């Protein structure tokens, strides 16, 4: 295969991405400690959570609202296994606790996946939402695991250091994990497993007649989504130093959906784009007199506008722009973006088994 030629379109596509990576690499030098921690690092772990949703939605056609519940399970499992105020009295080594938290989350994810993977489209969305809210009520009721008002002062591995006094370490960890998650999903998309998942997304009945075990593939994909969500959950506990039932309630579940949709539900990069927009908007509007505490109304209106006007999200808009500029000025033939833009994001998401 010949290497792709550098067209204007490609430059417009990859240029901003490279610039963003460069800025992020020197993040601690460019941003104040507060901004780095409260906005950028938060956006990175929110982005990982959104990436787990976009992986499922974009690659497998499973729009899951269970990702925040799953990251909550990882977070609560870890917080209970290591030294902390509230929750269980177990005090494992932080690394062991982290590892166990991720493992428990993946196990629960596989179980959820086994139940939900036989449902498609909007039914799948509803079932995962029911799982999510049940998980929230579980932790809200079972105070043996969630303490009264949350598990506080969760012990972190030394390498994380103090996220408030010295935010650079956690920032680089979140950046590295974001990159790892991004590359893992991109790589998986090209493996036979990833291709089979995309086949399941496009036409489950055809994949079944080709001899693939469709429910198994969907279950494994959901388990993988749980693994990615678990990474976000662990990071969120390290960043907050605490976790409470309120941090995995319905509004938080919807936040991650909002992030993914604002960024673009069918473009992996959209996860972090949406997360940055969300975190910046959050930080900026809280200072405004007009908005104050009504941030959720603002985000609801932005979300509504995106869904109504550009179902492809910000990445969809940018795609149309690069496509247009590429064709107009660079003489490139219409790329895959044009074809994708014609496809309404929501129209193709409900392959029903026949």
């Amino acid at each position, binding site marked *: 295969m010949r290497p792709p030629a550098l067209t204007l379109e490609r430059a417009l596509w990859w240029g901003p991405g490279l610039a963003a990576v460069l800025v992020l690499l020197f993040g601690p030098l460019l941003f104040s400690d507060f901004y780095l921690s409260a906005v950028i690092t938060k956006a990175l772990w929110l982005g990982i959570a959104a990436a787990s949703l976009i992986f499922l939605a974009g690659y497998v056609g499973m729009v899951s609202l269970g990702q925040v519940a799953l990251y909550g399970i990882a977070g609560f499992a870890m917080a209970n296994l290591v030294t902390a105020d509230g929750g269980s009295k177990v005090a494992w080594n932080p690394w062991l606790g982290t590892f166990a938290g991720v493992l428990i989350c993946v196990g629960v994810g596989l179980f959820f996946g086994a139940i939900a993977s036989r*449902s498609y489209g909007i*039914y799948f969305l509803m079932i995962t939402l029911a799982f999510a809210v049940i998980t929230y009520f*579980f932790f809200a009721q079972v105070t043996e695991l969630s303490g009264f008002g949350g598990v506080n002062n969760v012990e972190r591995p030394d390498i994380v250091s103090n996220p408030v006094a010295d935010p650079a370490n956690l920032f680089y960890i979140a950046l590295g994990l974001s990159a790892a998650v991004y590359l893992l999903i991109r790589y998986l998309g090209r493996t036979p497993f990833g291709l089979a998942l995309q086949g399941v997304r496009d036409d489950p009945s055809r994949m079944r007649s080709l001899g693939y075990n469709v429910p198994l593939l969907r279950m494994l994909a959901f388990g993988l989504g749980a693994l990615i969500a678990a990474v976000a959950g662990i990071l969120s506990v390290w960043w907050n130093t605490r976790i409470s039932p309120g941090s995995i309630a319905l509004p938080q579940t919807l936040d991650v959906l909002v992030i993914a949709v604002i960024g673009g539900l069918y473009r992996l990069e959209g996860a972090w784009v949406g997360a940055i927009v969300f975190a910046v908007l959050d930080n900026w509007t809280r200072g405004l007199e007009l908005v104050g505490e009504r941030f*959720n*109304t603002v985000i609801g209106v932005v979300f509504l506008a995106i*869904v109504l006007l550009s179902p492809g999200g910000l990445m969809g808009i940018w795609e149309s722009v690069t496509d247009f500029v590429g064709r107009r000025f660079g003489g490139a033939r219409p790329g895959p973006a044009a074809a994708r833009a014609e496809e*309404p994001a*929501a129209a193709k998401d*409900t392959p029903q088994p026949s």
Partner: protein
Amino acid sequence: MSEATAATAADLDWRSRIAALPPGALALRIAVAVVVVFVAVWVSYKAYGDPRQFVIVGLNGLTLAGLYFVVASGFTLIFGLMRVVNMAHGSLYMLAGFFAFELQERLTGGEATSAFGTSEAGVGDWIIPLVVACAAVGVIGLVMQQVFLRWNQGQDLRQALITIAISIIIADQSLAHFGGIAEAIAEPTVFPDSVSIFVYDLSYPFFRIFVLLVAIAVGLGLWAVIMRTRFGMIIRAGVDDRQMVSALGINIQLVFAAAFLLGAVLAGLGGVLGGTMISVDKANDTQYLLISLIVVIIGGMGSLAGAAIGALALGLVDSFGDVYLPAGYTNYSVLLVFALLVLVLAVRPLGLFGRPA
């Protein structure tokens, strides 16, 4: 001879059907059966130990199921006809509760709810807020459908996202206007506090029985409308083949609007009944969205009978779970709801009465 052959064939059929099940599915069915038998034995054992408690807890479950049915029937009606999953259904429920509470406060000058239990509200002080709240919520639902959903028909994910966005805005705005404190709508004074139920000399809160009666009336009314009227005939035809119905010269958009209005009004009715029976709270939207989801996932989307069965199952599990779990484990009762969901989905992924779209 022919009889013998028939018996063998039926026998074979039964055996071959079991043999044809994949090994996992058979194990699953056996596991589900074991769980059901275990639950039945446990409940009978507890009921034998304390029959009075069983009656009261059972009635709690039935009346709760009535409330759940009223709310979920609106949700399933909208889905059945338009394939719209209205994620703002819980928000409409909550809004109706807050509207009715506010209006009652103004009508009675705050007297009605000043002391819990001793209601000062006249009949009008309860009926007028009920009607106004239902109407207001119905209009909100109608506007939602006309402005945002009408031109997205067929894009079910996009429509669900739109209603989610609306639910986020409603949740935040109602927090701003109504605050976060749980309140209760006062029931009218003409209602007796409790009535005898003629079993073990027990008496039971009248209003909860009233809710159950309303739910039965709503169920029968919906059934009559859908099965016995022209409007219902159009709805059933629309569920099966929307394009054919409009090709026959029927204004299906009008029917959609009416069905959405009715669905929203049912959420509102549930909100006022629930706000009187239990409370009005900012967490109601999440709670009743979950209840609507679970009821229709168990019963099957779009099925009225399914909604009734689903509401019954959820109401009974909710109320028995809180009491019949071993002491010290009652706070795990939400896991029973999860187990119910898992059991049903494991055997019937489309719900008990669900049909493939």
